[in-house]
C-alpha cells in the first residue's frame, strides 16, 4: 500500500533534513510513498483552528481530497499535521451535515470530494504497525547506544479516544522503536508534557512557551539524556532552537526519529541534514 506523502510546513521549509531523512528511510524500509502536487499547509491547528474552524476544515479537507483522488492513504511526519488532518477527517466522517457543506464548496472549487474512504497515518504508526520492530532490527547496521529522552508530543496520541494509537499516559511505541536500533530509553519527570510550542503559544506568548520548554529540557538533563528523539518538526524546532535561545549549555542534540533511523541504517549523512540543527549534533 502506497501513501500520499504529506510534507506540511516546518519539515520542508525549516528542517528539510527531516523530509530528506524520511524519504531515504522509507526507501530503505520499503514504505511506498508518492508526492502529490499542490498540497498546502495542513492547515496548522494552533492558529487556523483557533481562528476559524470552517477554514481549518475546508483547507484540511482539500488536502485529504487530493490524496483521495489518487486513491491513497496519507502519511504525515508531523504531529501538527496529524492533529489537523486526522481530526478533520474524524469530524467530517462523523458529521454528515458538515461533510456535505464542505464537499459542496470543494466541488464548486476543484471538483474534489472527501468521502472518508482513506486513512491518515503518522509515520511512527506506520513504522511500528506496518514495518514492524523486527524488520527494523534486521536492517540496523549501526547501533545507536545513546541515552535518549523520547518526546511524544501531544497530537500523535491525543485525543486518544479517536486516535487509538497507544496509551496517552504510558505509551510504549516510541520506546520500542528507539530500542530497536540500540538506543537506551531514559525515563524522566513529566515525560508526556507538551514542548510548549503548540496551540499558537510559541507565536503569541514566547515567554510561557519557553517556560514549558525549559521544564522539559531540565527534566531530560537531570535524567542524563544524551539526545532528544521527537516525531514532530515543531517540537523539534522548539527543543533545537530553544536550547540555543536558553543558552544553558544543555548540549542535547535533537533528532527526528527519521534522522536517528538514517544513522542506524547507515544511510548517507548528507541526506539527513543534522548539521543544519542549531544545537550541534556531535556524536
Amino acid at each position, binding site marked *: 500500500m502506497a501513501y500520499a506523502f504529506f510534507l506540511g*510546513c516546518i519539515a520542508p521549509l525549516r528542517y528539510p533534513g527531516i523530509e530528506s531523512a524520511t524519504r531515504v528511510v522509507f526507501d530503505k524500509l520499503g514504505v511506498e510513498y508518492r508526492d502529490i502536487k499542490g498540497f*498546502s499547509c495542513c492547515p*496548522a491547528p494552533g492558529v487556523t483552528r*483557533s481562528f476559524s474552524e470552517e477554514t481549518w476544515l475546508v*483547507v484540511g479537507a482539500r488536502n485529504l481530497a487530493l490524496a483521495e483522488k489518487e486513491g491513497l492513504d496519507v502519511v504525515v511526519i508531523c504531529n501538527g499535521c496529524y492533529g489537523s488532518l486526522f481530526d478533520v477527517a474524524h469530524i467530517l466522517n462523523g458529521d454528515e451535515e458538515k461533510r456535505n457543506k464542505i464537499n459542496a464548496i470543494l466541488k464548486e472549487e476543484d471538483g474534489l470530494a472527501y468521502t472518508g474512504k482513506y486513512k491518515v497515518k503518522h509515520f511512527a504508526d506506520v513504522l511500528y504497525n506496518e514495518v514492524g520492530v523486527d524488520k527494523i532490527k534486521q536492517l540496523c547496521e549501526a547501533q545507536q547506544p545513546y541515552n535518549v529522552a523520547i518526546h511524544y508530543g501531544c497530537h500523535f496520541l491525543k485525543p486518544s479516544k479517536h486516535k487509538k494509537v497507544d496509551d496517552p499516559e504510558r505509551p510504549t511505541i516510541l520506546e520500542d522503536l528507539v530500542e530497536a536500533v540500540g538506543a537506551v530509553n531514559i525515563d524522566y519527570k513529566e515525560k508526556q508534557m507538551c514542548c510548549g510550542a503548540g496551540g499558537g503559544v510559541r507565536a503569541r506568548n514566547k515567554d*510561557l512557551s519557553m517556560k514549558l520548554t525549559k521544564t522539559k529540557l531540565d527534566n531530560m538533563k537531570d535524567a542524563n539524556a544524551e539526545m532528544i528523539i521527537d516525531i514532530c518538526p515543531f517540537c523539534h524546532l522548539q527543543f533545537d532552537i530553544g536550547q540555543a535561545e536558553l543558552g544553558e549549555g544543555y548540549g542535547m542534540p535533537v533528532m527526528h526519529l527519521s534522522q536517528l533511523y538514517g544513522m542506524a541504517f547507515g544511510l548517507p549523512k548528507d541526506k539527513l541534514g543534522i548539521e543544519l540543527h542549531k544545537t550541534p549534533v556531535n556524536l
Partner: protein
Amino acid sequence: MSEFIEPNTEFSKEVAKRAGNTFNLCFQCGTCTGSCASGYFTAFRTRKVVRMAQLGLPTVLESDDLWACTTCYTCYERCPRGVDIPEIIFAIRNMAVEKGYMGEAHRKTAGFLLKTGHMVPINDEIKKTRQHLGLEEVPDTTLANPKALSSVQRLMMAMHFDELIGTKEE
C-alpha cells in the same frame, strides 16, 4: 463585595452550537486545571473557562489567558466527565477572533497561509539547503503550483478568512 452576574444563555448556546454541550457535564472538580502545563506557569484556569461557558460570561472572549492553552489535550484525557475542553477553547477562540481579539503574531501567520498556502515562508537559504539535500528547490506544494494556491485562497475566502484577519485588534 461580590456582584450578581446575569447568566447570558445566548452565549452558552452559541458555545454549545460550536463545541457541543459537553460543558454542561462539568462538575468543577478541577482535574483539568491540575493537569494543565500552561496553568502551572500562568493564571490560566481551564476549569474557569468551562464555568464561564456554562454561565455564559462573554468576558472570557477578552481574556489573554484564553491563548495560553497549547491544545495538549491532557485535560480532555483526564476529565472524569468527558468534557471536550480543547473543543470548547477552540470555539471560544473563534468567537473572540470574530470580535477582533487576535494576537498580531497570529494574524501575521494567518496572512502567510492566505498568501502562500503555508504558515512558514520560504527563502533563498532554504532553497539552497533543499538543493544540497537533493530535494526539489521548492516543494511541489502550493509554493510551486499557482493554480493550487489560488484554489486554496478561494476556499479560504469562501469562509471569509480574508475579512476575518483584516479586522483590527481592539
